[in-house]
């Protein structure tokens, strides 16, 4: 018998070992705490959406298009209706009058082509996996069985599957309006001058393969109604944004729609979306008056969770003979897939200001064209735009180093922004508020043993060892903490980037924090508790964090873009400040002192120069009783704050990777990996460590393992984890991680985002290492993912062996 996990026991164990490391001085911020939410998350005994059971609940299964591009000529659902347990069968025609169009909130140019995007296809299907019909039945089995009885005839249309071909004259069209959605340009400095008679010009094309976000919890939706009000549970990152968008899409008034993101098992951007299944679940529940649930299978998810990356990057770099960068020019094709979803066109723009990396240059020119293809739409995926940009510049820096014959770290030193130059306004117009690339790099080099590994590399080259050693560098920065609302407005985004928090001190002195951010595995409950504990001087255990329900958290912009701490955390700090100010008024009144004479520390208000004091808990009770408050004082010890950041945050770091490449088989093995990240001040080092580890793993996965593959008919071939390879711990090395701490100057906590940094940094570090190992063989690029077969074939073609 397997031993049953007891949530209570696990919780107790976590509690007993909850603090692994604590800073001197007893503050909560900086403490390496285990996460208070982990017991329920790791045991699964919590409100995952699929765990929700409602009386009379029905189950939905979707029939999905087997064709990449086709006209629907006949739909017959009659046989399916007679199957056991079937309550209703719907096709696109049934919803045509009410389903609206799935929203795109980021038309990046005034003339961006935004095609109608029906949640369920009515006349035409444009990618394999698009919903064409659904069965509503008494259980999941009945629903899945009846799907097989639905008959749909298709008239095939020619699919568009390649971005370059899509833009060529005479290409078949995904939409009537053509295959180009937009072209967006941005420039700084004089790019022609920079390239004019430049001693060194490097030109490369890199392929950012298509990726499939693979959150541990698949997507799931539960919709219900009492005939007037609607409640939607969804495994989403964005309950607040979703509520607004669903109201606009379905016509259900916003005040009659409640959206709940219960515990959510990961997202990585894939749940930053307004999905067809969410809209259709609402429509079905409206039609039937009964609660319905839909939970995707993993294969269904691979087909229809929005995909990530998929860019073709042409990058040119001009430099002086000594390697000083003069200019960078980028021409990007970004695969939108068949439709524009919530922020699809904006993803490449989030990278547009990052192809300069940490480097100084005279000129920059960026053009991106969004292209429609008959594939699943793409959208935000961990890093969204910045991994792509970082990859291109960090790869090309290595090419520059090779071209002029200097060490790749030296070429970076010659070009990066010096610590003394901060704050620094880049060629893209962003102001990097703080950073210390020298410190992070020096630390990383020491931990890595750079010189020793270089010596081993030359030795292996000399010996013509079949196993060669390569060293990869990635000195990255990124822009996160999305985002100053004005900047988002200037980029035509449909909403702001502020964040909201409510802090309320309860009568017994316990504290509730309501956050507009929406955790899905990050550990907000722990981190926010640490912040509040320090700010209000209450015990960590006395803080509860509420989130993810628009009925309790009325206002928020949710969680993505490494924004929660750097934006949402600051809203919490501001709300705490307001609460303290109120409490000071009450304390002064009770102690018969002037508020100016009352000081606050460690949870206690003291009258300066006397022994008189009151705890914040005493003030809370007194405020609740309201018997003796200052004249005109509202009896409440709570406050709200909405924080709109003035700038992004710019974490940075140096990642170093040593890879062994077996030239006989093409196999690669990461031998060591060192990451020194600077994410500013740290609230919880353990959470930061976890984010860095997971991020590095996800970036390595792009470099070596993951790729969504469509065949020449537009069928997705990677629909299971046997075909779409995700690395596990067994496939990854131990990571050596460390931090430097250069506080952000743009927020009172001095924090920067950390959710995406590892992913952004690690991909180029790995590929740089592989290319570095094989450079003597004439190799200057290996397409991602660098599979053994691809490395082997590259060696055979570039390395002069017969193909």
């Amino acid at each position, binding site marked *: 018998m397997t031993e049953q996990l007891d949530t209570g026991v696990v919780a107790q164990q976590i509690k007993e070992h909850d603090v692994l490391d604590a800073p001197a001085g007893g503050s909560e911020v900086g403490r390496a705490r285990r996460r208070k939410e982990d017991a329920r998350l790791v045991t699964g005994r919590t409100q995952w959406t699929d765990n929700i059971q409602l009386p009379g609940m029905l189950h939905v299964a979707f029939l999905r298009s087997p064709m990449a591009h086709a006209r629907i000529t006949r739909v017959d659902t009659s046989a399916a209706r007679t199957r056991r347990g079937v309550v209703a069968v719907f096709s696109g025609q049934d919803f045509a009058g009410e389903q609206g169009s799935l929203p795109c909130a980021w038309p990046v140019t005034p003339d961006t082509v935004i095609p109608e995007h029906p949640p369920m296809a009515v006349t035409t299907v444009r990618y394999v996996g698009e919903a064409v019909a659904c069965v509503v039945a008494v259980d999941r*089995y009945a629903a*899945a069985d009846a799907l097989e009885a639905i008959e749909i005839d298709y008239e095939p249309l020619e699919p568009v599957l390649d971005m370059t071909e899509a833009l060529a004259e005479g290409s078949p069209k995904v939409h009537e309006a053509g295959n180009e959605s937009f072209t967006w340009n941005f420039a700084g400095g004089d790019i022609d001058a920079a390239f004019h008679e430049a001693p060194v010009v490097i030109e490369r094309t890199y392929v950012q393969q298509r990726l499939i976000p693979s959150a541990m919890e698949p997507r799931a939706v539960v919709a219900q109604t009492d005939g007037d009000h609607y409640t939607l549970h969804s495994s989403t990152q964005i309950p607040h944004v979703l509520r607004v968008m669903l109201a606009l899409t379905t016509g259900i008034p916003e005040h009659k729609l409640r959206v709940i993101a219960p515990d959510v098992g990961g997202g990585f951007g894939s749940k930053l979306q307004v999905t067809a299944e969410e809209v259709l679940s609402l429509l079905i529940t409206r039609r039937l008056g009964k609660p319905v649930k839909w939970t995707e299978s993993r294969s269904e998810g691979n087909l229809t969770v929005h995909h990530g990356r998929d860019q073709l990057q042409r990058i040119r770099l001009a430099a002086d003979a000594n390697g000083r960068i003069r200019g960078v020019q980028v021409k990007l094709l970004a695969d939108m897939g068949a439709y524009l979803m919530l922020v699809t066109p904006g993803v490449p723009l989030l990278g547009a200001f990052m192809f300069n990396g940490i480097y100084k240059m005279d000129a920059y020119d960026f053009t991106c064209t969004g292209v429609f293809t008959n594939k699943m739409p793409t959208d935000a995926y961990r890093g969204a735009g910045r991994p792509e940009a970082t990859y291109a510049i960090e790869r090309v820096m290595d090419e520059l180093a090779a071209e002029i014959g200097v060490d790749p770290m030296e070429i970076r030193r010659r070009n990066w922004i010096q610590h003394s130059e901060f704050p620094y306004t880049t060629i893209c117009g962003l102001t990097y508020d703080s950073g210390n690339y020298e410190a992070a790099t020096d630390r990383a080099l020491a931990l890595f043993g750079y010189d020793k590994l270089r010596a081993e590399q030359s030795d292996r080259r000399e010996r013509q060892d079949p196993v060669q050693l390569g060293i990869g560098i990635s000195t990255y920065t990124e822009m996160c903490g999305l985002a100053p609302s004005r900047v988002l407005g200037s980029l035509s985004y449909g909403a702001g980037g502020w964040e909201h928090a409510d802090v309320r001190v309860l009568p017994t002195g316990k504290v509730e924090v309501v956050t507009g951010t929406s955790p899905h595995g990050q550990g907000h409950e722990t981190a926010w508790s640490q912040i509040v504990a320090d700010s209000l001087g209450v015990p960590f255990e006395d803080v509860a964090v509420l989130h993810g329900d628009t009925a309790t958290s009325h206002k928020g912009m949710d969680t993505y873009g490494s924004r929660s701490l750097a934006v949402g955390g600051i809203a919490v700090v501001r709300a705490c400040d307001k609460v303290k100010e109120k409490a000071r008024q009450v304390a002064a009144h009770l102690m018969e002192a002037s508020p100016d004479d009352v000081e606050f520390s460690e949870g206690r208000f003291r009258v300066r120069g006397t022994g008189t004091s009151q705890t914040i808990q005493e003030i809370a009770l007194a405020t609740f009783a309201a018997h003796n408050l200052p004249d005109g004082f509202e009896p409440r010890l709570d406050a709200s704050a909405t924080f709109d950041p003035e700038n992004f945050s710019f974490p940075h770091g140096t990642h170093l990777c040593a890879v062994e490449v077996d030239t006989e*088989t093409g196999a690669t093995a990461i031998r060591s990996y060192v990451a020194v990240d600077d994410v500013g001040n740290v609230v919880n080092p353990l959470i930061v460590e976890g984010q860095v580890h997971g991020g590095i793993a996800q970036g390595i996965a792009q470099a070596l393992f993951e790729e969504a593959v469509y065949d020449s008919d537009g069928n997705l071939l990677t629909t299971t984890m046997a075909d779409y390879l995700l690395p596990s711990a067994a496939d990854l090395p131990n990571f050596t991680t460390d931090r430097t701490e250069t506080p952000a100057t743009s927020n009172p906590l001095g924090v920067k985002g950390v959710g995406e940094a590892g992913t952004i940094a690690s991909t180029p570090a790995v590929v740089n290492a592989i290319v570095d190992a094989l450079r003597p063989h004439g190799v200057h690029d290996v397409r991602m993912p660098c599979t053994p077969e691809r490395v082997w074939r590259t060696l055979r073609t570039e390395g002069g062996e017969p193909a």
Partner: protein
Amino acid sequence: MIPASFDYFRPSTIEEAVDVLAGAGEEAKVLAGGHSLLPLLRLRLAYPTALVDVGRVAGLRGVSDRGDHVLIGATTTHDEVVRSPIVREHCPLVALATATVADPAVRHRGTFGGSLAHADPAGDLPAVALALDMVLEVRSPAGERAIPAAGFFLDYLESALAPGEILTGVRVPKLGPGWGFHYEKFHRTAQAWATVGVAAAVRQSNGTVEEVRVGLTNMGSTPVRATAVEEAARGVEAGQNGGLRRAAEQAAEGTDPPADLHAQPDYRMHLARVLTHRALLSASAHRSPAT
């Protein structure tokens, strides 16, 4: 998992199992550990009308020493095989290969007999069965019969098991002294199927290779015995600079490897040659203590 519906039987004796299977119709399948069958059901790639679960059939599980061979019960889990002192002593190649199957969770559920009966050429054990000349014991209403591994794997996911036959156990011949073994598995992630696998056994004496057995994983629609390598290796000098590399050059002879997302046929053939050389070297370097 949302499979199509099926009848489910859980017999407790082999006689009952054979009867139930015979009565369950042509579309019935035998269920053991389920680690190959259940994914097919989950993806609705298989629609068996009935599953006959042999997981609790008495006498099918466990390893025993039968003198000139070791008998591994069909429902013995991979983990039990790896940990069995009898297997480790008398058929170390089985232990080496089984230890590479998927991950610990799978090895605690998946069974030795199940992975042979499934006849997946990408599975690790069929190639070992060929290389070691295992004999598969099966039962049906007609009685018992024994099928040599060489005649068991007919095509992709197709074995010599007739409808109504249940695999009960596998005889693994003891090879005797002087042999060394190695299973060389090349795969992209720890849990992935072998892109190519090589099961090798080498008997040598005084630095000369006397006999070699090589089975190849995922090099065709069935596991493949690399007979050309075996012949070429006989009598060559052992060691890094001996004749094993030249013998291994024959590894792709007569193979017809599949094309999939992880490898094209020419790459698999190349891998077979490189990995066979490595497997032979390792096998000759790790001779069993019996020598």
